[in-house]
């Protein structure tokens, strides 16, 4: 029963990560791709849009897959520690992809009656870098978890056997 519960938990978290890392950014960038303000079109160039969506989808898929393995693994198991660490590193790469795909410095062309009359640029690079810093601290935490699960493997197993009477350690 516990095994199926873990798989169910993995699927739930995978869906959560698909929504947060792929669906919401996709809808946001699609929505801002062409906005009209006071009759003037504010347009994100097609090339830039496709580049951003490609990197978001690529890392979003990897993160969602890793989230499934992370959250479906038994608590305090080496498998969970490994996947949690991999997932955080992928999260960092995902945030970094916002920078190198151009999503942190969006440039919208201002189009008035077919003519390009200028541009609006929004730079959120400092914000993304700050998030990277927080994720870096999380890497330390997950690394700590990983070594903790290895070094205290015996204690963790004893505790698991005690709580699950007659159960087998399948981790």
């Amino acid at each position, binding site marked *: 029963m516990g095994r199926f519960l873990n798989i169910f938990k993995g699927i739930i978290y995978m869906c959560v990560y698909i929504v947060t890392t792929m669906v919401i950014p996709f809808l946001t960038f699609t929505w801002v791709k062409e906005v009209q*303000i*006071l009759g003037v079109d504010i347009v994100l160039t097609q090339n830039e849009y496709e580049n951003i969506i490609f990197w978001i989808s690529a890392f979003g898929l990897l993160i969602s897959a890793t989230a499934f393995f992370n959250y479906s693994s038994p608590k305090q198991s080496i498998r969970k520690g490994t996947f949690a660490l991999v997932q955080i590193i992928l999260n960092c790469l995902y945030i970094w992809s916002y920078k190198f795909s151009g999503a942190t410095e969006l440039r919208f062309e*201002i189009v008035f009656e077919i003519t*390009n*009359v*200028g*541009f*609006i*640029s*929004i*730079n*959120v690079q*400092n*914000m993304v870098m*700050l*998030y990277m810093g*927080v994720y870096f*601290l*999380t890497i*330390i*935490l997950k690394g*700590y*978890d990983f070594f*903790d699960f290895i070094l*205290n493997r015996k*204690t963790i197993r004893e505790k698991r056997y005690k709580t699950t009477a007659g159960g087998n350690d399948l981790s």
Partner: protein
Amino acid sequence: MRPSRVFRWIVRAFLLVFTLSLSAVSILGGWSAVTILNPSSDDINIPDGPLTVNLDIGNSSMDILVPFNISNGGVYDLSNIFLRFQVEMTFGNTSTLNNDTTTVQIFDTPQSYGSILPGQTLKANYSGSGSLPLSEVDWFRSPYALEFYASFTFSASYSLNLYTFTVNIINISLGHYP
């Protein structure tokens, strides 16, 4: 509970507080920035009133005066406010063989206005002067001897400088002489 787990929970709680604070800053900042930039909110008015351009052909000079006001209706300082006008003049150049059309920059004045605290309004005038290189102008060029084009840049930072936005309008026709 093992001491290593207790230590982990302390670090995790610290990270949670850090992440939640950061998310609150980004959400509040993003929302305020959208409120300020919303065209219907009238928070940014450039120009705010008649734009004055004095073209003095006799003295080969020009003056520009642009009144503007910017209100900060958000929760953070609106900082690094920067305005820049550039004016270019297009004319037939008599120093070339075929009186080729030449464009020169006659006005370029960047100005910084510091920060606006939340709830406050900056009401100021952007002004500057430029000189016209009229010695090589073909005054018989058609349709006009002189044509003027302006470019405009406005930039500012928001939410503890985490967001920076720039608006750039390029080559808008200002008018012509005669």
